[in-house]
């Protein structure tokens, strides 16, 4: 596989983490423009851990996930009573606040005569773990997809578990969910924390993939796209947001001529799909029909 293809696939994999993060909140009925904040927090945390403190990649990513989950919980509590537009704006405001804080965040130490660490708006360069440990681009791509596979397996399990059904209940009718005995507040915070952790892992991987991060990477554009991936790909299964990422990055990379018009094409696609298929391509009904067809097929064979 050539360097370019590895690069594109690695990007698809990494962006899938934020897409899944926004998707999880969409399941609970919350539209967020702020998951890029936890992606950023995860990226900085993991980068600091490996490049400055000498932690291993696994520990760094774990630290990124933890930082994402913790900050998402802290944001989750005060925004618990907000819904719809108000929630969306609150998350957006928080994310912008985080981005601006990173523009002011300076924390550097000297390693081998070089200053390493976040340096405000100049960004955080030299997160060189994969070079120092001689991990090739291909190997790092396998790490990304290995983790993504684990996360997807977790989602498959979640969808079959009571927890997944509870998330969907809250998404469909929060009051009714409460009247079924579900503690809505607790599960909304849990969903926010898991989503924060997912974005945090994604951010950690991103930082190590590009070796370089800066605050403006994590602006609202990334948040809007991660939200749109689930809406385009579909809310019936965790494969939906990944399909969304593939459509955006894959399609535009394969048709280079379209690249400059990405926003127009992507925006148009979102608008069109919201009218024609409000819950995305792989929506609940389609997923249910496929499930029935698969089960029916199995029964017939038995």
């Amino acid at each position, binding site marked *: 596989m050539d360097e370019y293809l590895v690069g594109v696939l690695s990007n698809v994999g990494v962006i899938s983490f934020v897409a899944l993060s926004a998707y999880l909140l969409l399941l609970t009925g919350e539209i967020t423009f702020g998951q890029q904040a936890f992606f950023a927090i995860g990226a900085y945390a993991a980068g600091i851990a490996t490049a400055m403190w000498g932690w291993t990649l696994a520990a760094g990513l774990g630290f990124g996930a933890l930082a994402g989950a913790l900050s998402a919980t802290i944001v989750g509590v005060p925004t618990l009573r907000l819904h719809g537009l108000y929630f969306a704006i609150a998350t957006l405001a928080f994310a912008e606040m985080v981005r601006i804080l990173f523009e002011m965040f300076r924390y550097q130490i000297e390693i081998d005569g070089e200053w390493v660490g976040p340096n405000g708006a100049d960004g955080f360069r030299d997160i060189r773990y994969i070079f120092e440990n001689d991990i090739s681009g291909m190997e790092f791509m396998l790490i990304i997809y290995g983790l993504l596979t684990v996360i997807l397996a977790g989602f498959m399990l979640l969808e079959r578990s*009571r927890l997944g059904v509870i998330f969907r209940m809250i998404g*469909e009718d929060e009051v009714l969910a409460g*009247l*079924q*005995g579900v*503690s809505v507040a607790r599960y909304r915070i849990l969903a926010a924390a898991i989503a924060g952790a997912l974005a945090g892992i994604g951010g950690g991987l991103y930082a190590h993939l590009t070796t370089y991060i800066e605050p403006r990477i994590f602006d609202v554009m990334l948040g809007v796209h991660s939200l749109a991936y689930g809406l385009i790909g579909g809310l019936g299964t965790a494969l939906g947001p990944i399909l969304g990422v593939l459509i955006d990055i894959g399609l535009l990379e394969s048709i280079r001529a379209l690249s400059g018009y990405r926003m127009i094409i992507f925006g148009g696609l979102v608008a069109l799909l919201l009218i024609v298929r409000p819950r995305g391509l792989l929506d609940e009904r389609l997923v*249910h029909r496929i499930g029935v067809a698969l089960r029916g097929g199995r029964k017939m064979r038995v």
Partner: protein
Amino acid sequence: MLELHRLTKHFGGVRAVDGVDLIVNPGEVLGLIGPNGSGKSTTVNLICGLFPLTSGLIMFKGEDISALPPHERVTRGIARTFQNIRLFGQLTVWQNLWVAQNSAEQRRQNPVRRWFGGGGSAREDIGRTLEFFDLAHKRDELAGNLAFGEQRRLEFARAFAAKPVLLLLDEPAAGMNAEEIDQLDARIRTLRDTGMAILLIEHHVELVMSVADRIAVLNFGQKIAEGSPAEVQNNPLVREAYLGTATAA
């Protein structure tokens, strides 16, 4: 079982429920009737905790539950249906019943079984519930795809799935045909005979007169009569309340 003491709810200047006392006993169907806007649905909403009380007290099994959030009341054994059907349309029939299993007893189930697909007694309970409400053939259908009558049955079934000791039925016969109402009548009786306490709000007079053991009548948020179906039917205040609204409309 359930005791309401001077239950009061004001919305701004509107006294939706105004000092209502009511008792529902185990193994009893209490019919709650009254003209439109008399406070019946608000009473049910207060019992299950959708709004805070303005004043008064809700006692359930000897405990004051007035300040508990809705989900904790469910755990204690209160379940309800809605006047306008409210289901999780994107979930299957089976899932709608599965996630409703939230009584204190059901929560004590083996966690692996509880969180991953029921199993054992929980699964059997759902199976029996589906049979009882004639929905077994629809178990894997999305609730949103069901016909109207089936959705009504599923709502009732879902309330039943939580193994409640108090069931609040808010106009369960709305939109049903005669045959469906007969089935509903039979189901309510069966549940009452198991010792369940049932509060039935209903506009369909024949059903209430047939199935209720006692009837309470609300008008403008106040209880104006209470007694056996025959007593209530002959009460002049009740007649006036109904005729009054009829002429006003």
